[in-house]
Every structure is written in structure tokens, then in C-alpha cells.
């Protein structure tokens, strides 16, 4: 019966014209999405000379030398570990600090909760980029310009509004009875946090990590004003170097862009389902 209904509905939804139009549109737009990326990767294996002869042909003599040189010129051996430190450090920081605060907001009653929590929620819609200049001045004032700690603090701070919001809303759904019975058994709030809240909050921790990992790995505008020393730069800053005087050296530029793109593409291929879910949960917020 159900199957029958579905076929009638599907039958009427999809007149063959509508179906062909839908396929046509999907193929056109996915092609437009993938071709530039494919084009970039393909050309990263050409010498600049071959690129100038034809940009659309397959590489006749594929070469890895662009990668070797781009890796050296971009100091990627330094920047790659930096990006990992910033991404992992800030993501862990955001998740841990958000869950802590979320637990307090959701399960310990206090008159302070309302104003502070609302403060975080308001922060969700404040784009950190609009605070670029005062942040730059503040970091200089505190004497932490060109330090890793400044980058980590700023990244954690900008991730907190959404982190605290999602954590609090999630932890609210943990039954009070669980926490109360642990309290009666004499557990401290911290051991309840460790033994009950953290294990039960894994789904929201995963969502938060997924959202923040790609954001932080790709972040450019803020770190651009926080550090100027090469030893502290992240991958996007290194890639940006290839836009200026190096921009006519197409082979190396494309290799650098590919190096910048591949880690996140792999991350996406592995975690596509969670990323999609996380975006849907994180982007539509109040």
C-alpha cells in the first residue's frame, strides 16, 4: 500500500520533462562546481611553460616539481604543523570550555545565568571580522602580538558563542534525575561533569568540532592581523603569499592552492555526513 502510494506520487511529481530538467540543472551546476577544482589540480602538474601553451589540455609531461618548489617557497613545512596546532588546540578549547559553561547554565540554577547566557547568544551574530581593528590594538596592548596564545585565544573566543549556545541547549536535555541522584550520592559537580555530562554530550561535541575544524583551518582574516612572523603563520597565510609577485608563476601557485585545499577535501570526504548535519544544526540558530 505504502509502496503503491509512493509510486503514484513519484509518478506524478516526475513527468519526464521535469525529471530531465532536474537532471540537466543538477549536472550543469555540479559540473560548474567540480570543473574549476579539477582544472586547478590538473594544472598544478604542468610546468608554467606548458600552462601558457594550453590551460585546458591534460598535462603532457606531468611534473611534481611545482609541489616541491611551492612547499619550499611557502614554508609549508612550518605552516602545516602550525595550522594543526591552531585547529586542534582551539577546537578542543572551544568544546571543553563550552561544555563546562553549558553544564553550569543548564543544570545549576543561578541568577547570573540569564544575562551571561544571553550575552553569548548575542555574540553568535557578531562577526569577529568586524572587530579586526580593535582586536589588533588589544593584542598589541596586552603584548601578545605574534604569539600562538593570541591566535588560540581569539579562535576560542570567536567559537564560544555558538559553542556555549549549542552545548547549553543540548545539556538541558540530559534528565535532571540523573544529576540529582549523583548529587545525593555525594558526587561533586566536576565529577558529574566528567562522568555523566561529557559522555552524554558527545554528539554535540562532535558537531562543534566538525564546525570549528573547517572554520579554523581555513581562517584568514583574523590570523592575518594577529601574527606576522613566518614561524607562527597558518596555511592560508602561506598560500596568500602566492598571490602577489608569485602569481605569474602559475605552476607553483596552483600547487600551493592544491596543498591548501586537499586536507579539507579529505576531511570532508571522510566526515561528509557529520559535516552536513552540523551545518544544518549550527547555521540555523536563534
Amino acid at each position, binding site marked *: 500500500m505504502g509502496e503503491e502510494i509512493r509510486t503514484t506520487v513519484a509518478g506524478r511529481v516526475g513527468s519526464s520533462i521535469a525529471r530531465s530538467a532536474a537532471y540537466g540543472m543538477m549536472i550543469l551546476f555540479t559540473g560548474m562546481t567540480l570543473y574549476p577544482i579539477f582544472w586547478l589540480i590538473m594544472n598544478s602538474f604542468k610546468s608554467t611553460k606548458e600552462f601558457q601553451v594550453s590551460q585546458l589540455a591534460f598535462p603532457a609531461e606531468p611534473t611534481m616539481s611545482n609541489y616541491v618548489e611551492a612547499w619550499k617557497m611557502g614554508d609549508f613545512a612550518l605552516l602545516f604543523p602550525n595550522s594543526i596546532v591552531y585547529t586542534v588546540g582551539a577546537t578542543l578549547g572551544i568544546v571543553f570550555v563550552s561544555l563546562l559553561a553549558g553544564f553550569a547554565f543548564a543544570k*545549576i540554577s543561578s541568577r547570573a545565568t540569564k544575562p551571561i547566557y544571553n550575552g553569548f547568544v548575542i555574540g553568535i551574530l*557578531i562577526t569577529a571580522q568586524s572587530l579586526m581593528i580593535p582586536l589588533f590594538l588589544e593584542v598589541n596592548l596586552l603584548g601578545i602580538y605574534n604569539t600562538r596564545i593570541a591566535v588560540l585565544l581569539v579562535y576560542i573566543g570567536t567559537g*564560544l558563542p555558538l559553542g556555549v549556545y549549542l552545548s547549553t541547549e543540548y545539556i538541558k536535555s540530559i534528565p535532571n534525575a540523573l544529576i540529582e541522584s549523583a548529587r545525593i550520592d555525594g558526587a561533586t559537580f566536576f565529577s558529574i561533569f566528567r562522568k555523566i555530562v561529557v559522555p552524554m554530550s558527545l554528539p554535540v561535541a562532535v558537531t562543534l568540532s566538525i564546525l570549528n575544524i573547517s572554520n579554523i583551518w581555513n581562517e584568514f582574516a583574523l590570523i592575518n592581523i594577529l601574527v606576522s612572523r613566518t614561524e607562527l603563520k597558518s596555511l592560508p597565510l602561506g598560500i596568500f603569499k602566492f*598571490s602577489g609577485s608569485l602569481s605569474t608563476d602559475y605552476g607553483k601557485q596552483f600547487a600551493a592552492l592544491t596543498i591548501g585545499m586537499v586536507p579539507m577535501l579529505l576531511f570532508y570526504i571522510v566526515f561528509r555526513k557529520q559535516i552536513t548535519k552540523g551545518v544544518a544544526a549550527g547555521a540555523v540558530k536563534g
Partner: protein
Amino acid sequence: MPNRLRLRGEEGRAYWSMVLPAFSIYLLVMAFPIVLSIVLSVSNYDGGKMFGGDPWGFAGFKAYARVFSDPLFWNALKNNAYIVLMSVFGQLPLGFIFAYIIYRKLVKWPGFWQGVLYVPNIISVIVVGLLWQTIFSPNGPIAEVMNSIARAGFQSRLEAILAGVGSLDISDDHVRKILDLAGPAALEWFTDPVPELKELIQSYSGAPMQELLNDLCNLFVQRWSPEFLSKSNVAMLPILFVLLWMYTGMYLILFLANMQKIDAQIIEAARIDGASEWQVMRCIILPSLSGTIVNSAILAISGSLSSFSLIFAMTGGGPSRVTEILSIYMYNNAFLGRPNLPLANAISLIMVVISFFLIVLTKLAEKRYGGKED
């Protein structure tokens, strides 16, 4: 009673030690910069040590007056508005259509299309910006494709004219036809076109025809060099296109996720009762997505405030500052040429105020459309 008091004390200590890490980082990174921008925007601080350096103090609202009388500010605001309009009338409808196609199973492999269309979101904006900068550049692939099409067209018409004619026995008539084909620009090459070109063609006798064709193409086909990003009247268009390319997939995911929450039985029942597909869309799907649509529009506005990196990579705000958006306008005022910090802080605060306006909008939308969706 004393026991209870002790408990409250422990509760309070636990509460604050859990809230304070988040709260203090938040104050440091988000709240304090806002205060700083308020203070500095009405000051005459111009860099250097904030304390213990040259003294600085209150300077009134000069910076704001300057911002509002600066045509570049209005230009930047206009560009932000363009980005919002492109989102609302480009990304949102396209994302909605894609989501609808997938949701109503008009195509197979839903995961594939969704997965591919979201890819540009995951790539670093800097990579995307530099990639498209190259694509739109005067020597980029668009130019190459257009030029090879133009060349192929010219060559085939040239072949038609020269069909069956050897280069030695070419007549004045043929030469005139070739000159017509090449257009007025070709005449610049010659003082007396017909005999000179005829002589030139005749000098190819014995050589393969292809060589003559190639050289004539080289001579007459004008290389078209697109200047998408360096012509000030069109430079915003490629940027808007790339934003469309990048973020449509995100709206697809938002719409699809919320469509999937609609009870499928309602739609099936409506279809059985004879509702047309259009009626299903208008009376069931669209109304249940009204909250999502409003949220997406708000997202589009906040997105326009955070498009710094893409434009920074594609044009840096140029040519001659026409593609600046507010954040780039602010950055350029703080770091380019002679920095004007009160001005930059005033712009920063204006952007924060726009964000607050968005928050109010969100609250109103929540009241109107009932509750959050997650």
C-alpha cells in the same frame, strides 16, 4: 541549615569555576574589543603606546562625521548590499530549488548532488579567491576558450573564402573578402591593403595551406583580453559570482535538512486528494520553511559582513577601491597608507551595530514564525 548553606557555597563555587573560563575569554575577545572600538572611535588615538606614550583623549564624533561623508564608505556599504541581494535572490532560490529537486526525488543519488554542491564551502576562501582570480584574469582559461572559439570561427570562414584557390592565383576579389572578414582593425597593418596582402599571400606559394591559415589568423584575429577584475564598473560581478558559486550549497543543505522534517504523510495525503505539485510546494513546503527562509536571509546579511577574505584574495578591494566592502574599507583605513585608527574603529562599531540590528531581526522573526528550528 548550616549544611544547606555549605551546599549553596559549593554550588556557587562550581558554577563560577565552570562559567568563568568561557566568560572571561568571551569578554576578552568579543566584549572588550567592542568597548575599545567605542572609546577609540571618539578619540584622537593614532597608534603607538596606548598607555604611557603620547597622550590622547576625547575628540568628539569627528570620525563618524568623516565616515558618513566619505563616498568610499557608501560605496563599501553598497557592495555589502549587493552581496546581500545576490544571496537573497541568487543563493537562496537556487539552494531552495536544488533542495526541492532532491527532496521530491526528481533525481537519483541525492547524497551525491548534495555532497558535490557543498564542496566549495569546505575549501579555504583564500584558495577559492586565488583560483577564481586566475580564472578571470586576462590570461586565464576564460580568455583562452573565448579566443580559441573566435580563432576557429575566423579560420573556418577563411577556409571557405580560400577554398579551391591556390595562394599564387589569388584574385583581388578574394583579398578584399579576407580584408572584410578581418574588419577595419586589419587595415592598420597596411598602407595599401589589397596589393600588399595579395603579395603577402602569394609569398606562401609552395608552403602548406595550414601555415598560411595560421599566420593569417595570428595577424587578423584580435586577442580578446577580459578585464573582469580590473575594470571598475564590472569588478564586483565576478566577486558576486564566486560568492554564488561558494555558498549556494550551504543554503541547499539548510533547506533540505528542514524539508526533511516535514511529515511526508501530509504531502502524500495532499497528493492523493488531488493537490498539484505546485500546490504542495506553495501550501505545504513553503509555509513550513518560512522560518528557515528568514533565518537564511539573516545569515546572508551576516555573511556579507564576513566576506573579507574572499575579496581580499580576489581584488584586495581594487581597482581603485571600488570592490571594498565594509570590512576591507576598515582594514584599508587602518593599515594602508597613513593609518586612521579612530576612523577604522568607527567603522568597526558601525558593523557591530548592523549585527545588533540582525539580532533584533532574528528575535522578531522568532516571534513571528514561532520558535527556533534546529
